[in-house]
């Protein structure tokens, strides 16, 4: 297909229109967050500094970051051994596990929140009232994305042969999973982890309805008193997520190259 000249002009015009729709709101957010209060001219970074100076906001940022970390750890611990085990020993369960992992796509997060309050009264009773208990709900939320990322990584290697070789050399199942399979699916696990962090950093449904102060909840509250500072925090969290996801695309391209050359 060699595009004609007129098609290329039309394409350029449309691409600019799309770019305007997608980037103007982001630039507007930046503009808003660096404006001086009142009618004063010029720019200020005070609203961005607010993230460090304001204690509530800082605490919520730390809570969200810790939540991301815990979610990733619990997701990996729960999902990777299960998926490897299913492939090796109980392949008949694979459909069921896949179904369970993809189920959160069909059940809206809001519905899970509505039903989870009883479960959470037990969780907070047992573990205390820290925002970090949200980890459990968030692992459910990221299950479909994590499952797909790890599943495609596992499909790319020959788990059966690798583990059989390790087993015949005397390795136990723990060694097989942690030291043989895991290093071979690092790319997929990292991808799953990045997406999980991206989702957790922006998650608002669970946190707001279960009354925990994570970053999005704190931003929504802050907006009422200091809109510009809230915008700065929102933009910063978004840039953080963009960097993560851009890193992910780089990673997946590298993996793609490896696959193509081998």
């Amino acid at each position, binding site marked *: 297909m060699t595009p004609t000249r007129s*098609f290329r002009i039309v*394409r350029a015009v*449309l691409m600019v229109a799309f770019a305007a729709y*997608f980037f*103007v709101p982001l630039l507007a*957010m930046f503009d808003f967050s660096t404006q001086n209060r009142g009618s004063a001219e010029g720019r200020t970074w005070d609203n961005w500094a607010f993230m460090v100076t304001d204690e509530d906001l800082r605490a919520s940022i730390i809570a969200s970051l810790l939540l991301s970390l815990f979610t990733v750890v619990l997701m990996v611990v729960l999902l990777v051994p299960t998926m490897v085990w299913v492939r090796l020993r109980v392949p008949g369960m694979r459909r069921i596990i896949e179904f369970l992992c993809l189920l959160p796509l069909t*059940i809206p997060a809001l519905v899970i929140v509505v*039903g989870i309050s009883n479960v959470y009264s037990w969780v907070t009773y047992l573990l205390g009232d820290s925002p970090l208990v949200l980890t459990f709900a968030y692992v459910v939320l990221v299950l479909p994305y994590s499952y797909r990322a790890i599943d495609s990584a596992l499909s790319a290697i020959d788990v059966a042969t690798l583990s059989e070789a390790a087993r015949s050399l005397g390795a136990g199942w723990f060694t097989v999973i942690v030291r043989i399979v895991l290093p071979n699916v690092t790319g997929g696990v990292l991808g799953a982890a990045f997406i999980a962090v991206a989702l957790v950093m922006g998650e608002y449904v669970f946190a707001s309805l279960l009354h925990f102060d994570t970053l999005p909840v704190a*931003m929504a509250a802050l907006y009422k008193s200091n809109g510009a500072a809230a915008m700065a925090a929102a933009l910063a969290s978004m840039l953080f997520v963009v960097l993560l996801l851009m890193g992910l695309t780089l990673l997946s391209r590298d993996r793609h190259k490896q696959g193509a050359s081998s």
Partner: protein
Amino acid sequence: MGCPARGRRHAGDPDGRADHEGRRVPRDQLVEGHPLSTTAPSAGTGRRFSVGPFLALIPFLAFVLVFLLVPTLTVVVGAFQDGDGRPTLGNLDALTSEAAISALKGSLILSGSTAVIGAALGALLAYLVVSMKPTSLLRRTTLAVSGVLAQFGGVTLAFAWIATIGPVGVVTKAVMDLTGADLYGSGWLFGLPGLVVVYCYFQIPLMVIVFAPAFEGLRPQWREAAVNLGASTWDYWRHVALPLLTPAFLGAMLLLFANAFAAYATAAFLVSQGQPIVPLLIRQAITSEVLLGQANVGYALALEMIVVVTVVMIAYNLLLKRTSRWMR
């Protein structure tokens, strides 16, 4: 949320369960073909089947049971119970109340319109992107940015649009200075029309990442074959490309519909007056401290959401299967 590869994955599945003609492989052959199942289980007790391997799945299954299945069942069962736990159909009556009907209508309008707009514009953008050279930097960047923006939502997205076309938004002020017109008007951004504009922001990129593979799946050979048989460009699109793309397009549109129907966070922040869509009515039902016994109405509304999204996702999967016959 997008999953263009789901239908295709089975084709390359290394231990796929079906042979080339789609027949099921007999169970005995399958077991022998599997490198481990001949050695590992028989090494122990010599039984063909043992419970042991299933035990390792207990942590995962228990977790999913407690944090996914129990909540869902709570909603389903709670929808048919009154405040004291007695079975009733009264909550379902609440679904026919004026507020519930208008919220459902609002949700259907919002999800439907953003699915149609998102699918049309997303397909257009996907086509523009795919028509570039595969090595083109702009093509790769657009696809990567789409992947990011499709996940973009919640409070941050609401902020972005308030900063753009809110009461003192950048575009509002620019339009005011240039033409004198008040773009913000009477606050349409904080109602249903505003949600349509804002939701399209993640619907269009989602369409791009779901639908671009369908364009890429159109093989140049098909076009060459059509041209060899004397087809014009129009004939090719009318009789070959569009019929092939239609199931994928409809499927992607259903996915967009489900995506918008389930979305909550952006609307929750943006809309403070009234309950124009189902998720916001649920919020009112479960956070209401004025009216007791509303929790079960919330369950009924949540059940309504499950039903709608499930029907849409089943239709999506059927279309996906149809698509995967050609697009591999």
